[in-house]
Every structure is written in C-alpha cells, then in structure tokens.
C-alpha cells in the first residue's frame, strides 16, 4: 500500500496535539515546526536554526523528544505530539518543569526555553533520578545564549525532585489537584528554593 501526493497538492495531516485531534491541509514540503506555528497557530514551539543544531524546536513525538524542524508534517500523520502549550494546567498553573525553570532562573530571554522544557520533560520521563552529568547529557541537544546553563541545570534538578514527589508523568498536562502543587499559580509563588532537592514548597 502506498500514498503518493503531487507537488502542488495539499495533503491532509491529522495529528493529536496535546491530547486534541487537529487536522490541516498542507503542502508536502511543510516542516513540522511550521505546521505547528503557522497551520495550527501553536507558536510556543520556537525556531532558531532550522538545521537541527539549536533544539529550540524540540517537541515530543509519541512521548520522545525530536526536532520539529527536521521532520515534515506529513511524516507525523496519525501520531501524538506534545508541545509546550500542552504542559500548564487548564487554569494556567505551571507544569513542574516550567515552575522549576522560573524558580531557578533557567531562562532570560526565553527563546530557547520551550525547547529546553520539552527536552526536560522527555528526559525526566526516562531518568527520574538524574545526577548532574546525566542532566547535562540529557539537555545536550539544546543551546542557550543567555543563561550560561547553571540555572537550567538547577531547574531540571528541581523538577526531577518535584516530579518524583508527585509521581506525575512529566510528558502530560499538569493536574494541580493531583499533586503537591495545588494552589501554586504561575508566577505567584515565593522565592527560589535554591537547593533543587525536590522539597515541596509550603
């Protein structure tokens, strides 16, 4: 069996993005990153280099981090995607990885952040108790021009502890009532914990 489409044809791409079925008709040449940003209007996924180096475009494909600038939209037909828009709770409460980036100053300009956050979600699903070297290796496919990486390392460490405490799958949307983060809306919690040891803020 085979599906072939011509050069000027548009192809129907159906995917599940952050749990929601989405569809659009796109030219075969449409990059997945452009499909998300332009066709689905999900502009949280950033595009830095478009040649696979910076990692800003990282999303999860069936739960594993990939670079969306190196895939064609038509290649992911029928599959499940998770983007940064799918992480925070419906009421806006930040996902533990996002909260940790904020707490630990894991971002400055924020351009690289969606990519780092998605990489961290994929990484922490595989490695629940990472040491510093494992975090460096896990995040090695993302570049940041601002932070110097120390805050990012601390953020991933904090998130690992927070996720262990709550038992939540880092690749799914944050459910505040299910864990220790209830009542912690984005941007309003106290000063950074600093130790990254996974203590639950009171």
């Amino acid at each position, binding site marked *: *069996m*085979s*599906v*072939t*489409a*011509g*050069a000027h*044809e548009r*192809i129907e791409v159906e995917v599940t993005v952050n749990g929601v079925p989405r569809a659009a008709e796109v*030219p*075969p*040449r449409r*990059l997945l990153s452009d499909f998300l940003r332009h066709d689905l209007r999900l502009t949280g996924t950033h595009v830095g280099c*478009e*040649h*696979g*180096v910076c*990692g800003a475009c*990282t999303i999860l*494909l069936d739960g*594993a*981090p*990939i*670079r969306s*600038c*190196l*895939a*064609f939209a*038509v*290649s992911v*037909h029928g599959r499940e995607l998770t983007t940064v828009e799918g992480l925070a709770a419906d009421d806006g409460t930040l996902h533990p990885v996002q909260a940790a980036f904020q707490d630990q100053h894991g971002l400055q300009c924020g351009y690289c952040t969606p990519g780092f956050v998605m*990489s961290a979600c*994929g*990484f922490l699903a595989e490695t629940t108790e990472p040491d510093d070297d494992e975090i*460096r*290796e*896990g995040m*090695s*496919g*993302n570049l940041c021009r601002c932070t110097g990486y120390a805050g990012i390392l601390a953020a991933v460490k904090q998130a690992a502890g927070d996720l262990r405490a709550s038992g939540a799958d880092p690749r799914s949307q944050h459910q505040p009532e299910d864990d220790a983060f209830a009542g912690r809306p984005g941007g309003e919690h106290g000063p950074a914990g600093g130790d990254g040891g996974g203590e639950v803020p009171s």
Partner: protein
Amino acid sequence: MPISRPTDVTATLDALAASPDADLLAGGTDLVVEVNLDRRRPEHVIALRRVTELAGHDTTDGRLRLGANVTYSEVEHDLAQLVPGLAMAARTVGSPQIRNAGTLGGNLGTASPAGDTLPWLLAMDAEVELASPEGDRSVPLANFLTGPKSTARRPAELITGVRLPRVEGPQHVSKIGPRNAMVISVACFAIVLDTTNRRVRTGMGAVGPTVLRSPDAERAVTQALDWDALTCPEDAIDAFGRACAEATAPITDHRSSAEYRRHAVGVLARRALRRCLST
C-alpha cells in the same frame, strides 16, 4: 515536491522505480538539514518510516540483522546487550532529539566518513542488505562505501538493513570531537576482541575518505594478545596505536588538521584496546 508514504518494501521499490531520482527519507536528520539549507531540492520524497520490514532486528543462523529504520535510541536502549559496541557508538551521536529520529539506514545512506556507526559495523564485517526490483543483494560494508558520501547503492535500490556475525568478546567505541555532545567526529575508533574467532577487529572513522581498518595492526595485535588471559604486552599496545595511525589517510578541514586526526586515532586505538583487556 511530491511525497510517497509506502508501508512495505514492494511499494517502496515501485515508487523508486517510478521516480529513480526520488530522495528516500528516514529520520530526516541529514536529508531535511540539506533541504532547509537549500542544498537539496528533492523532486520527490519517499518517506520510509511506515515501511514495516525496515523496523526491528532478528537473528537467523547465528547472524544478526538490524533493520534500516532502527534508530540510535533503539540501539542505545534496547540493543545494548546484543550489540554493545554499536550502542556505545549510538550514545555519541548528536543529542537525544537526533537519536530519537536518526537511523542506521540514514547513516549508511549518507555514508559520511564520520558516520559514527560505520567503524563498528566495518569492524564486524557487516554486510549491507539492498533490495531492488531485480532482487536482493548484500554488499560488504567495505565495498558499499566507495568514497566520502558515496556508496555502491544503485538508484533503484533500497537499503533494508545490515547483517553481521554474532561474536563474543569485549568491545569498545569512542570518538573525539571539540565537545562532548552534538559533534561530528574528528576521529572515531571501534575495536572488538572477537574471542569466538580469536581475532582483533577494528574500524576507524573520520580519518580517510571512508571508514577504514588496518589489517597489519589487527594481525600484529591478534598475535600479541594472550587470548586466554586477555592481556597484551605494553609495547604491542603502543605498536598497535602507531600501526592504526599509519594506516589512515586523513584530511585537514574546518574540524581538524590531518596531523591531529592521525595522532588522535592512535591514542583512541591504544585506549580502546586497554579498555578491552583485563587488568
């Protein structure tokens, strides 16, 4: 740019026969980079991800077959017991996002002299499986790789996988680059102390127009090794490193100088051998 998305090898070969200039697309980590940089404008793309026969691995008659669509992540996580050296090589490739997408078939298709699976595959005398409407053939990797980014693959052919013998014994793969992650090899070295056949197998990457091996170095160290104790005299280890370095034909480019590459591969060879010996 029309795109075909076949689900089996027959349909893939039909699509390829219908447009022999088509670009085959596996994980896209080489091809889409070329497209985005406008170095390649595919007339037609045949996407392989859905072709079921290209996935997975199996063992028949003591030979292992790895499908072309096997990703680095699969090698790293699922095949580390079966092919430890290849798993070591896979762990050095790019970054997690690249390893989740990039495939063995793509590394073979690109045939860069710095392709990181190739030294180990060469050391193992791997054969590349090719399918075409004329029938299947398998080509020893050494003959498949004909030059930098050029192969013996014919336009109508699809790489379906690689076949290799199953051998026992310690193995090691390591590479050198300017940083730890996300680097193309400046030099890469693979070694297998094949205790089944009592011979040392090697492969060297990024130090010649294709990956290469030094038959002289292999022969000498095979003789110098105490195969029961898995030990080797110091002077034979040094000689091994020198002989490997001498067998290279590196170039100077933006990544490194020829001299450094030659030096580096000799150091890697000695270290890799030491790692495989019992101390």
